[in-house]
């Protein structure tokens, strides 16, 4: 389930500049998902795919002017964020911002704590603490993907950019226009939702 590593930026950029189709496929395969998530967290579902399509075109057109002051990944994410933000300004009257409602659901069901705030229904034991062992269950892997898919857009994008793309927090905050403490809240909420799912999976065998 691990990712095949991408070639380094020099190789990637050189392939992209030559319009090498294989390099384009590698880059699109690797970044399309996070780009759509990023666009969704800024503009919502309606225009996200279009914004990403425009962004790929801007990338192809602007690559020869890329000054390499940041990584290629960061540069690409900025293209998407800028395209989504400018589309948001244009379409703001048409968009209903239900996407942006605050997630104030409790991290953990409050009934699991007693009146002093201590566990009365403590976290149950998992079959293993080793992620690889846990992920050897196809069913749990599927549940994990499904749970990530269902996270609120900003949580999913924050989680993806931080844990999977390993972008620096400051960069993620700039892309999403949020503070570092907001980012930590988004990550913590997302991780707790997933931990809760894994716990339920161990109790019920399903998610």
């Amino acid at each position, binding site marked *: 389930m691990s990712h095949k590593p991408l070639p380094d930026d020099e190789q990637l950029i050189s392939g992209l500049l030559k319009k090498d189709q294989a390099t384009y496929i*590698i880059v699109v395969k690797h970044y*399309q998902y996070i780009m759509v998530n990023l666009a969704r967290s800024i503009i919502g579902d309606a225009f996200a795919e279009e914004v990403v399509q425009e962004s790929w075109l801007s990338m192809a057109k602007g690559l020869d002017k890329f000054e390499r002051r940041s990584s290629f990944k960061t540069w690409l994410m900025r293209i998407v964020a800028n395209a989504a933000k400018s589309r948001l300004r244009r379409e703001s009257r048409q968009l209903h911002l239900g996407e942006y409602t605050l997630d104030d659901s409790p991290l953990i069901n409050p009934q699991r704590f007693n009146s002093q705030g201590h566990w009365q229904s*403590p976290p149950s034991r998992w079959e293993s603490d080793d992620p690889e062992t846990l992920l050897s269950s196809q069913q749990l892997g599927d549940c994990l993907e499904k749970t990530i898919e269902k996270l609120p857009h900003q949580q999913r994008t924050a989680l993806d950019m931080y844990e999977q793309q390993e972008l620096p927090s400051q960069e993620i905050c700039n892309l999403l226009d949020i503070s570092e403490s907001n980012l930590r809240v988004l990550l913590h909420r997302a991780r707790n939702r997933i931990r809760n799912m894994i716990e339920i999976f161990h109790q019920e065998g399903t998610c």
Partner: protein
Amino acid sequence: MLSCKELTEQAGDYLGKQLPLSKTLQLKMHLLLCRHCRRYLKQLRTTIYMVKMTPNTISDEKAKQIVDNLFDHYTQNQTK
């Protein structure tokens, strides 16, 4: 003493190493004494590794479709 509920709320800042020293010490002290919270935190760390291992790429076919589409658009734009 820090309650378990408070610990679960502060765990995000703790993992992000953004908790002030005094709160970090309180949290560590709580962990020494509370096996349930040790398990909670361990599970949170396991969750993070599982997320890192989850694929988030699209299929080769879908990528090829997008690239073909992009090349078409790009060529059209160049000839305009």
